[in-house]
């Protein structure tokens, strides 16, 4: 959002061919990074004996906690790729939890899921009307949507859940009656085999087994659906004409308009889908993790999803990593708290040392020095304590996000017309 002063195209100097890197990093590089991270974590696990770092339960919990964040982030991605900033995700999620709980307990969870998505879409449409039709500032409208969604659901919950049948079935003003569970999927045999491998605590192999096991054991259908949505969104947005048009609205809507793209339509579609995905994120919370609507159930996950999206550079892959990071650290603190996070400090030390070395190598002395210094401090912390205070463990994801963003924010590239007002026929 900061202004670069000149907007004229750069001198047409011949430049190294960078075609390979234009859609993020090449696959090989990504695999290298993933492999490196895995090795590092496996090593730390063996050194510290914190088997929880890569246990099946840990990974499975991380996945469960990451799904709503990831879906919220994906919702943000759709909206922002079309040029509409959506800080109303939280509100749309709340609508999703309510819709899912409300219809879910009266009929069945599948209809609840649909209704959650539908309520989310409604929230998205409110945001779309305000920002696209009326040209209200996107953030302002998002804040209003959040307020409104909270108000309406609290009001309706009071009316729908605290009297009559609902109350008899276990509802109250803050909670819907319970909803039946959606089915879980388990790959028979595979899970057990992986589990036994994991229990050997072999270097790397057990880690891999734990991670894979976590990913295939007791998987909710909605989680599977969410994964498909990620892949599907990537395909739709980056591989189809529809996606190209949608993204062009976020990059340069006037140009899109000049080529016959109905920008309003695409923005509306994107924000509605965004609302639906946020609604699904809410429905996931209500149906999969709690089996009931609960007031304040979303607990700021809409905002976290937004952070994960920015973290992921407005791309599904990066976003999935961001959401995974949040889910993982959240799961860590819930399942083991201090001790495991303490082990993670060692990972942080290694990363900071690597970063510092790299920066020094690139002659960025200041940054390198600071990284090494912080790394040394963390190392001292690691050596002189046995666990991280529990109160801080909860803050791990936030601190990590802040750290990562401050190291990488300058490499991020948001859609160029993101958050800008667009009026048809007013382009220059």
């Amino acid at each position, binding site marked *: 959002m900061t202004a670069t002063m000149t907007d004229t195209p750069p001198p047409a100097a011949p430049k190294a061919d960078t075609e390979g890197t234009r859609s993020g990093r090449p696959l090989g590089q990504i695999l290298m990074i993933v492999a490196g991270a895995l090795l590092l974590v496996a090593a730390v696990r063996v050194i510290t004996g914190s088997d929880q770092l890569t246990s099946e339960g840990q990974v499975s919990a991380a996945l469960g906690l990451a799904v709503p964040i990831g879906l919220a982030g994906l919702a943000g991605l759709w909206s922002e790729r079309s040029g509409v900033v959506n800080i109303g995700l939280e509100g749309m999620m709340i609508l999703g939890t309510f819709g899912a709980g409300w219809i879910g307990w009266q009929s069945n969870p599948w209809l609840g899921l649909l209704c959650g998505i539908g309520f989310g879409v409604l929230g998205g449409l409110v945001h779309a009307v305000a920002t696209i039709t009326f040209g209200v500032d996107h953030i302002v409208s998002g804040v209003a949507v959040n307020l409104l969604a909270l108000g309406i659901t609290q009001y309706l919950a009071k009316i729908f859940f605290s009297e009559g049948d609902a109350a008899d079935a276990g509802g109250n003003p803050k909670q819907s009656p319970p909803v039946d569970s959606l089915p879980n999927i388990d790959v028979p045999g595979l899970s057990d085999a992986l589990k036994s491998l994991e229990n050997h605590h072999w270097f790397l192999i057990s880690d891999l087994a734990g991670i894979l096991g976590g990913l295939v054991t007791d998987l909710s259908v909605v989680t599977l659906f969410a994964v498909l949505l990620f892949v599907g969104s990537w395909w739709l947005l980056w591989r189809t004409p529809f996606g190209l048009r949608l993204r062009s609205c976020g990059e340069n809507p006037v140009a*899109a308009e*000049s080529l016959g793209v109905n920008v309003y339509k695409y923005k509306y579609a994107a924000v509605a889908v965004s609302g639906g995905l946020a609604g699904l994120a809410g429905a996931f919370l209500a149906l999969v993790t709690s089996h009931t609507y609960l007031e304040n159930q979303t607990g700021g996950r809409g905002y976290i999803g937004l952070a994960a999206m920015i973290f992921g550079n407005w791309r599904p892959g990066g976003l999935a990593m961001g959401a995974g990071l949040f889910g993982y650290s959240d799961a860590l603190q819930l399942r083991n708290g201090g001790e495991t996070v303490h082990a993670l400090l060692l990972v942080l030390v290694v990363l900071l040392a690597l970063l510092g070395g790299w920066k020094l190598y690139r002659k960025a002395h200041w940054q390198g020095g600071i990284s090494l210094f912080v790394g040394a401090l963390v190392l001292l912390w690691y050596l002189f304590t046995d666990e991280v205070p529990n109160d801080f463990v909860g803050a791990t994801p936030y601190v990590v996000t802040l750290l990562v963003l401050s190291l990488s924010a300058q490499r991020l590239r948001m859609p160029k017309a993101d958050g800008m007002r667009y009026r048809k026929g007013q382009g220059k």
Partner: protein
Amino acid sequence: MRGITKRFPGVVANRDIDITVRTGTVHALCGENGAGKSTLMKILYGMQQPDEGTITVNGERVTFHNPADAIARGIGMVHQHFMLADNLTVLENVVLGAEKLYGIGAKARTKIKEISDAYGLNIRPDVLLEELGVADRQRVEILKVLYRGAKTLILDEPTAVLVPQEVDALFDNLRELKAEGLTVIFISHKLGEVLSVADEITVIRRGTTVGTVEPAGTTPKQLAELMVGSELPTPETEESTVTDVPLLQVDKLHLTQTDLDGVERIILDAISLTIHKGEVLGIAGVEGNGQSELVEAIMGIRHPDAGAITLDGTDISHAPTRRRREAGVGYIPEDRHRHGLLLEAPLWENRILGHVTERPNSRGQLLDIKAARTDTERIIGAYDVRTPGIDVTAASLSGGNQQKLIVGREMSHAPKLLIAAHPTRGVDVGAQAAIWDHIREARREGLAVLLISADLDELIGLSDTLRVMYRGRLVADADPATITPEELGSAMTGAATGHLEHTEASGPETTEDDAR
């Protein structure tokens, strides 16, 4: 197009316009800034809807609700301002909106290469658009239209950012297109080009058609007078007022920019220049060759890696922008909306902008609102800013009047040095003459001016000294008294660098021979 009328709040952009374009011809539209040319074409392209009037294509009455309708009728448009998305590839930019034709994958790529080869456009489909320069972007725009199989091409001021040699290449392309039976509608202010390429010329003045002429038997002067409705002003400099007191000295300025991939680009390369009191130094160059960055470096908005800037004997290389302005640097930015005005603020606040620390705008740390308002009234009178009052927002003024306000503001603080980037861009003829007069008058009183302009006539007419900038370097000097726009143009493309190399090393003793 018959009886087209289009009103905007406060402006009638088109008033009862009639225009007929024959198939297979190049038809030029001329008219001064704001005459309504672009609006008319946007109507033809379906981007705007006329309030009155009808459009007939190939004998059939049509109504275009949006560009898609027009595209379906074989009409394509290259806009005055590029309509490209930086973060998409060339391929994506081209196929956008026309995915039905060849998809968005390999087939489309083949088709693009095919068209590119057929017209010699030399386009690589898979580079990110942001890596392209102006001329390349222009070609992408044309390819976009061809890709859609347009039978009628609208080109809105395609030559404004091109140097003469590139213009020639473009015109060759146009003739080729015409030969294939395509119709081209072509807008330009540059009457010479218009006469050389068009089969027919329609002139628009103040929103209405004033006539259609054949290029044969029409002189540029006649055409211009038709456009303006009166005698043309010229930016002639009278007697020289150049003194030998150096006011601004720029010494070996060097600026690089590292992009995200760590690639370092040189933006300004060892720029050295001196402007004396009473001198206007003009810098010619195709946009994007570092002129904007040079201006911003002198203003202190960008921080060069090396080099020194001396203003009137004091070194200001590291002074912040505000100190430079206080030291007497006036600034007319190239983009008045982004850098010169607060569009949603009233005029009197815009009068304070940039000079908040100076009288009469403030006393000590406090604003002196009363004095600022009074002075705004004075500027409006003295510089003929047409406005109902000083409390309207800057956005509601027309471009020319906005520009006059900026000039008035900058001149009101007795600048020693005026940096004028495209001071008359998008400004009508009357205002243009007034702005030139103000610059000349101040020059007489010892003002030094750094003038950047894409309008070569303006540049040659106003400057005492001319330098040419190419790829971040000052590659040539010229004497404005003798040089022609064409000669200047060839230096601007870098085509003439070979000849000029020694001039750059040996300083300002250049002659017109070198420029040729």
